[in-house]
């Protein structure tokens, strides 16, 4: 995809400003290595790379979140500024965000939209610098697609909330300082009305984090148990009972993140040596076979249309559109495409794809990618749930009869 849009003079000026800032603030040799395309030089520069230092630097610069208000570490900028900073960071093969993907991507926008002044002051700047890392505590074993049926209890008592219950599918819980917690403050009202949204200190007594092993064999996620965990009342975001509305801001931003609109970390990992497409083609044997060629070409076509669509969505975003349900379109497409493609790579490699020498990392990675892809259509909203949302929110199709509508949460049938 070579579609580019010429900068207006205003945008060109901003781009120059970002670029100038980058050249000044990057580790020695980095800008050089990129601009000259010298992979060895970049490897050298990477060796002396201080990830935490960089996170602080960009976090303080405002370029990490141009849309955020100036007083909380952003630039109070326009949507197009975000695109330009991302493009420039990608050009220099740098991640926009450090460790704190969920903090910057989800917690920040949620606090900006629904937090009070104290909360914004307390948390936002440290999110940007990755000094305080955040995780998300929404899903529960019994509440997956139906997030609003979450049952973790938050009971108010003497200016505190006491939390009991279990969350699951929590990434980077161990490394996190704070969590975005959705918990039930009132079980006697319909499910959407009895939820509240909290900031929880992950180091609080009673927070028990257990790695959850997935089908890949790795433990990318955790289960988090809450046993009488105390949260001060000032950590309530928005008002009690209004947690679902707050959570939806988080979810919309999550969908955008998962729809592939901010894949800059891939660019960072990719390095300058070989682009991902060339790596993909190299991984396929028998490329002279017409059937294999169809697979390769279809992969290209699907990848391209996805990227072009993301580009179009990004451009729309530049004109100021808020993330809406159409993030679901690319999210579902991405998921189904990635499952299809990773499976095709396996078949193309025949028996070598399913049995390999111990320590053969190419084969391990291929198998891992194949297994990992299955989660793409589950995490962050199943493809089925998102298709329903696309049908209802974009196409305006009527909803299904809701059997739990208007029923107190505690009386809703559950497994």
């Amino acid at each position, binding site marked *: 995809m070579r579609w580019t849009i010429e900068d207006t003079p205003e945008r060109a000026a901003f781009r120059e400003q970002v670029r100038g800032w980058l050249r000044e603030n990057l580790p020695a040799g980095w800008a050089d290595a990129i601009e000259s395309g010298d992979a060895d030089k970049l490897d050298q520069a990477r060796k002396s790379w201080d990830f935490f230092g960089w996170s602080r630097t960009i976090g303080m610069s405002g370029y990490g979140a141009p849309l955020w208000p100036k007083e909380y570490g952003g630039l109070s900028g326009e949507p197009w500024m975000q695109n330009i900073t991302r493009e420039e960071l990608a050009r220099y093969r740098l991640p926009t965000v450090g460790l704190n993907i969920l903090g910057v991507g989800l917690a920040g926008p949620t606090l900006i939209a629904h937090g009070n002044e104290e909360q914004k002051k307390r948390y936002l700047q440290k999110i940007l610098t990755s000094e305080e890392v955040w995780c998300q505590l929404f899903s529960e074993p019994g509440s997956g697609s139906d997030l609003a049926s979450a049952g973790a209890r938050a009971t108010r008592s003497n200016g505190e909330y006491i939390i009991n219950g279990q969350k699951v599918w929590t990434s980077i819980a161990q490394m996190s300082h704070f969590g975005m917690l959705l918990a039930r403050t009132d079980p006697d009202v319909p499910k959407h009305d009895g939820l509240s949204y909290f900031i929880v200190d992950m180091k609080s007594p009673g927070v028990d984090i257990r790695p959850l092993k997935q089908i890949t064999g790795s433990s990318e996620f955790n289960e988090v148990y809450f046993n009488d965990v105390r949260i001060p009342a000032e950590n309530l975001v928005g008002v009690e009972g209004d947690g679902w509305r707050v959570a939806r801001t988080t979810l919309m931003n999550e969908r955008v993140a998962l729809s592939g609109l901010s894949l800059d970390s891939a660019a960072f990992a990719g390095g300058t040596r070989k682009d991902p497409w060339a790596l993909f083609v190299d991984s396929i044997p028998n490329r002279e076979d017409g059937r294999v060629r169809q697979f390769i070409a279809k992969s290209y*076509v699907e990848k391209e249309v996805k990227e072009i669509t993301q580009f179009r969505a990004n451009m729309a975003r530049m004109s100021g559109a808020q993330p809406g349900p159409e993030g679901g379109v690319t999210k579902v497409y991405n998921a189904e495409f990635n499952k299809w493609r990773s499976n095709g790579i396996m078949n193309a490699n025949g028996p070598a794809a399913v049995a390999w020498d111990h320590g053969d990392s190419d084969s391990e990675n291929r198998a891992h990618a194949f297994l990992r892809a299955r989660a793409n259509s589950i995490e962050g909203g199943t493809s089925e749930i998102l298709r329903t949302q696309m049908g209802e929110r974009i196409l305006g199709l009527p909803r299904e009869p809701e059997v739990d509508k208007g029923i107190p949460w505690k009386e809703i049938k559950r497994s």
Partner: protein
Amino acid sequence: MSTFGFTEEQNELRSTAARFLEEKSSSADVRRLMETSEGFDEATWKQIADLGWTGMAIPEEYGGVGFGFVELTVLMEEMGKKLFCAPYFSSVILATNAILNAGTEDQKKELLPGIADGTTRAALAFVEPSGKWEVDSAEVTANGGKISGTKSYVVDGATANLLIVSAKSGNGISLYVVDPDAEGVTRTALQTLDMTRKQAKIEFNNTPAKLLGEEGAGTAALQKTLEQAACLLSAEMVGGAQACLDASTTYAKERYQFGRPIGSFQAIKHKCANMLMEVEMARSAAYYAGWAAAEDPEELSLAASLAKAYCSDAFFHAAAENIQIHGGIGFTWEHDAHLYFRRAKSDEIYLGDATYHRELVAQKLGV
């Protein structure tokens, strides 16, 4: 999603086109014209010429409006939505670009003004009864200013008043300008699955033919012409697919079974969502192809095959689902679902289907 990438002028063109086609290309209009042998309405054709559509991408020095492929993308998408019956794809897209790509300056000055003002309706005869889309598969021979052999699948070939024909001589493939009324020309209308777009078989028997541009330069010129046409046919397919999605969505809201709208059932809702997803992706591919045709000559070839591959499948799928969502009513002649379904299959196959273009993608990527 938004229709990124268009100027205000282009958006205005889209609105005008939509309004015009709403009025001039109703279901009744389409059904009336598809039953005629010529397949279009002279008066409407005159009107779109007056609107500048027939000269849209023809440079001003050749009597055109001087816009380009992005404007053609807009028009083709809107025409596709309404199954507009006119020799637009044949004359304004295929033949015009063949002349622009192959013709000498003098020939452009001679031939293009007529197309731009609508008086010339040209057709491009490049494929033969073998059905091969490769431009160098031409078996029609040119010798001493005469051509002989048979072309087929010529869009609007029976009604065009100017023919551009590919033929081979000792120097390879060249394009020729042929008067359809010249001696030795026999035109036979074909029966078409898509009744809204006519095709013809044309036999030449020692027919006088004027070389268009240089002898032997036909392969490159024709190749580029077909790539440009693939971009624009993709835009037409996006319009058709969008019309199917719109029809399905509307029906799914209105049709009640089991006491509720069928669109409230996941089986139907998810079909519509998948159509939406594919239509959006197809739109991306077609807009990108239109942009490449206009702005990026190096990217044109790949973008054309990419768009043709994706949009062919997406439109066919949308048209097929549109019938299924409509159930029994979608299977009646009176409902328009089959007209889109026929167009989808015809567009999918014309210029090569998705499998064909994916192989081209692989070649163009050097796989």
